[in-house]
């Protein structure tokens, strides 16, 4: 019987040598004349173990990692094709604690299947959500999504069903589904991973959204920093069209839906939905004032659903298993599961999908295993560059939209970056301002000018120039940006800055170096 060996093609796995490992395995298969084949799967999300090579044995899949090309011969010698013991062996992939303790709904297939195999997709319940949707009335689909409690995973947490209903009820000769795959936040890679590891689930989710709202055309706007995701999505759309999942008659139904992949051009602000729409139309990615809502006047002025990748990719399982099944996970008004992205200076970095409600400390210490450097954790930034820095004393905060908001933070796209005690929080605050200055779309003054002034002010504090006065000025700038900005780039940059100042005041009082030396 042919043995199947899985070597991920996920960009993070490639970045740490997966292609070279696959080549080494290929060579070894040929040299030893064994009956084995390689499948390039997505990543299981245990990124500290990448490249994670799996062998499908009689019973389940055995994991080996991180594998370097130079390990491959010894793996064969150890009989890894039969799941043999080896220092890199972690036993059954399913039993690795990081994996076993997850609730994988959106990511159930990611890393398991061949991303571009529709047979694999179907075998693991793919397309059952879309098949159900076709048999339902649009209003029933929208109700199912509303009842599931799904909130937009792109950051703002707006209920997906309500957005869909607005578009469903809007009149227009043409409506659109636009998938926001701009994922510019540091520490987020869930969108990338699903597009590279299970692209059909996004296509299925978009088709369901189209049927529910009456939109017949969809776009996925992927940031140009993700060439691998763009290539996989392009290919998946081609296959889906060929297999009549997309096109004039979706799965043989009376519904039409087709979609296209578009590439961004390196502007963070294009993740903001109205800026994204301008970009898609071929304009500068400048934020539009709301109203009008994109749901009513979006792409080319027509009713448009703009949803994050995770929001859309969570829809198939909701339709398949029912709203109640999904809603039963989570806490408070944060329902279902959330793919937490654990990154930065952390031992076990990766993607961890779980129901809402774990505390930040559990995520960092228990699941993440503390810092990679082995030094104490000092700060954790949650929610990307616009998210607050949390000190260890706030590790009891549960992962829940409201709980984070109550502590002047945000979940955002659920990316968390761990920093050890060598981090300088004044420097991080300065970077937040610098990033805002680089990426500002320029439409409003508090953001455009305030961020540059913020950098200068942080620099003055660092140099010990009137630090008390400049700290007041920095806080005042933050206040102006928070309340005077049109969108969250200028409006939320104060979160990292103020949280750094509030929780790590010692870093904002640099010892007056010159005087001390005298």
């Amino acid at each position, binding site marked *: 019987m042919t043995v199947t060996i899985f070597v991920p093609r996920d*960009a*993070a796995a*490639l*970045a*740490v040598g997966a292609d070279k490992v696959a080549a080494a395995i290929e060579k070894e298969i040929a040299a030893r004349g064994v009956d084995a084949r390689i499948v390039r799967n997505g990543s299981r999300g245990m*990124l*500290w173990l*990448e490249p994670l090579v799996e062998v499908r044995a009689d019973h389940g899949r055995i994991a080996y990692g991180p594998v370097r090309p130079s390990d491959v011969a010894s793996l064969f010698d150890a009989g890894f094709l039969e799941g043999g013991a080896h220092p890199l062996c972690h036993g059954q992939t399913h039993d690795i604690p990081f994996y076993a303790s997850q609730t994988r709904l959106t990511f159930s297939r990611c890393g398991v299947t061949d991303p571009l195999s529709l047979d694999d997709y179907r075998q693991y319940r793919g397309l059952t959500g879309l098949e159900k949707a076709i048999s339902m009335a649009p209003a029933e689909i929208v109700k199912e999504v509303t009842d599931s409690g799904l909130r937009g995973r792109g950051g703002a947490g707006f209920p997906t069903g309500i957005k869909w209903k607005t578009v469903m009820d809007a009149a227009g000769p043409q409506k659109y589904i636009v998938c926001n795959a701009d*994922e*510019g*936040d*540091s*520490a*987020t*890679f869930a969108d*990338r991973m699903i597009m590279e590891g299970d692209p059909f689930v996004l296509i299925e989710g978009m088709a369901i959204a189209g049927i529910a709202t009456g939109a017949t*055309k969809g776009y996925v706007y992927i940031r*140009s*920093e*993700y*060439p*691998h995701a763009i290539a996989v999505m392009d290919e998946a759309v081609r296959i889906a069209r060929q297999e009549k999942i997309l096109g004039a008659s979706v799965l043989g139904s009376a519904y039409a839906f087709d979609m296209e992949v*578009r*590439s*961004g*051009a*390196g*502007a*963070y602000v294009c993740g903001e939905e109205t800026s994204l729409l301008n970009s*898609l*139309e*071929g*304009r*500068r*990615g*400048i934020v539009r004032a709301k109203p009008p809502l994109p749901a009513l006047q979006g*792409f*080319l002025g027509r009713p448009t659903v703009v949803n994050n990748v995770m929001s859309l990719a969570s829809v198939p399982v909701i339709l398949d298993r029912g709203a109640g099944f999904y809603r039963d996970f989570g806490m408070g008004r944060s329902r279902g599961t959330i793919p937490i*992205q*654990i*990154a*930065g*200076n*952390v031992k076990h*970095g*990766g*993607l961890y999908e779980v129901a809402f409600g774990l505390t930040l400390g559990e995520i960092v210490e228990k699941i993440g295993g503390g810092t*990679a450097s082995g030094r104490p954790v000092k700060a954790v*930034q949650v929610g990307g*560059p616009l998210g607050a820095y949390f000190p260890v004393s706030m590790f009891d905060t549960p992962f829940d939209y409201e709980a984070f908001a109550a502590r002047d933070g945000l979940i955002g796209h659920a*990316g968390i*970056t*761990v*920093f050890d005690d060598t*981090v300088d929080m004044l420097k*991080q605050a300065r*970077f937040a301002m610098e*990033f805002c200055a*680089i*990426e500002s779309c320029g439409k409003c003054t508090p953001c455009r000018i305030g961020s540059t002034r913020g950098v200068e002010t942080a620099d003055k504090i660092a140099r010990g120039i009137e630090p008390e006065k400049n700290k007041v000025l920095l806080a005042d700038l933050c206040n102006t940006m928070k309340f005077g900005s049109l969108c969250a780039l200028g409006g939320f940059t104060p979160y990292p800055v103020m949280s750094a100042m509030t929780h790590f005041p010692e870093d904002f009082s640099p010892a007056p170096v010159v005087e001390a030396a005298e």
Partner: protein
Amino acid sequence: MPVPDIDARTLSIVNDLKGLEGPLLPILHEIQAEFGYVPEDCLPIIARELNLSRAEVHGVVTFYHDYRRHPAGRHVLKLCRAEACQSMGSDRLAEKVKALLGIDFHETTGDGAVTLEPVYCLGLCSTAPAAMLDGEVHGRLDDDAIADLVAEARR
């Protein structure tokens, strides 16, 4: 190297893509893929064919970080400067790369071999620090790995 016929290629790219809804970014991407940058001479042609003002096209080209107005070096090295990479020492690596290449970000080495650019997250944040060399991704960079990468780019 033969001088490419900018006008004819531009017109053909525009004609291929102008049927798209919102064709300007796809056109500019294709032009940059063809020429390695967006030559000034393309702008009036694009403007004319899409019925835009030249200022509008110029405004779009200059808005986005990806579009170059001048040719880059033979290799483009993008170093991630965002938070997760910072937490793993990317600032120090950046200083090292700058010293090895003798240039700052946004510059090209004198021999035209390497252009160094900052990038804010490649989605490789759990395998930080990360970089991209000519579209190929590299993670878990340390002093040795970054020196190898620079040597590879220098070739």
